[in-house]
């Protein structure tokens, strides 16, 4: 993919290294001259010095038809202009903005920039998800939080232990996408049996998440 990174400070260096490792083609634009020089030397690549909220800067940097632009400015208005110019004038397919003010996430969505995030919003969501239950190891929202991936460990005395997936009678629908059964990874079908200490990766809607966790953690009556 061709990815444009516009603005930003300390996080840019990390992003460049991460994305380069995955062999993406990068265009980096920053309006701090010294930081441009540092990024350029540290990553052995050319970095464009200029204001990414100016049309001519984006043009000079050659961002036309890139797959993604990431706007990382500390000023949310600048991020809006960067994303909109990239999409409307240069045919960039997707614009992602990292915002300073979490309230602007909704504003950006209303103004056509659908993938806007703020660090404080992500932190709040993470804390919320972690605190639902202790056994919930990890949880990840995708597709605008319409789908959630949960990783849950099956306890030794869980009622579902020893039963095949097709024998379960869950209160809501969900999909077990894979099972970590040290050292192997099992892609399950209906006849796969759940064992204690299995780690299940579950796909569900956020609304059903709690009910599913309660179901999988229910202790066996006769235990």
């Amino acid at each position: 993919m061709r990815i444009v990174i516009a603005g930003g400070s300390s996080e840019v260096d990390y992003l460049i290294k991460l994305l380069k490792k995955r062999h993406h083609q990068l265009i980096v634009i920053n309006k701090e001259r010294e930081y441009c020089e540092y990024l350029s030397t540290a990553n052995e690549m050319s970095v464009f010095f200029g204001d990414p909220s100016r049309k001519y800067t984006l043009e000079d940097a050659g961002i036309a038809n890139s797959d993604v632009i990431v706007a990382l400015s500390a000023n949310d208005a600048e991020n809006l202009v960067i994303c909109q110019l990239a999409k409307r004038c240069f045919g960039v397919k997707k614009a992602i903005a990292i915002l300073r003010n979490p309230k602007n996430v909704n504003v950006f969505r209303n103004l056509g920039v659908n993938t806007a995030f703020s660090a404080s919003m992500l932190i709040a969501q993470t804390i919320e998800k972690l605190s639902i239950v202790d056994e919930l190891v990890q949880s990840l929202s995708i597709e605008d939080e319409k789908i959630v991936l949960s990783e849950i460990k099956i306890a030794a005395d869980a009622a579902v232990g020893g039963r095949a997936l097709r024998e379960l009678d869950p209160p809501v629908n969900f999909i077990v996408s894979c099972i970590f059964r040290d050292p192997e990874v099992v892609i399950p079908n209906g006849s796969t049996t759940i064992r204690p200490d299995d780690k299940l990766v579950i796909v569900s809607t956020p609304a059903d998440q709690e009910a599913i966790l309660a179901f999988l953690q229910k202790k066996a009556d006769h235990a």
Partner: protein
Amino acid sequence: MKRDKILVIGLGRFGSGIAVRLSLSGEDVIAIDKDDDSFRKLADTYSGYQLVGDVLDVDILENAGIRQAKTVIATTDDDNVNIMVAEIASRIYGVQEVFLRLVDQDKAVLIESQNVHPIFPYLLSMAEFDRIRGPKGGESR
């Protein structure tokens, strides 16, 4: 809900001048700037409201009464802020008349709409230059 307020955002010389003029003509004006000091530019004849705050926070715009605004005028010294305010006013709050000052004409494509009127100091200066120089200047070219 009755929409009768006018929000003037960014009190440089231009914004302050407009705020005072509209207030004198009897309009219900709310002047907003992130800097407390800016309000000194408002003449004594200004009788509207004054609000200190960052307009990139929608709560400030709501407190200022953007839902009851018939007109929003964005005249901060930052083109990007003026664009964002203009978009929020026209597209989210349905304000019927929005003005904004834009130094960079390239950005006008982002706010093209029937209700949004950009003002370009560059174009105005060029027009004034041509007017003062007159047709004579044209001949000598």
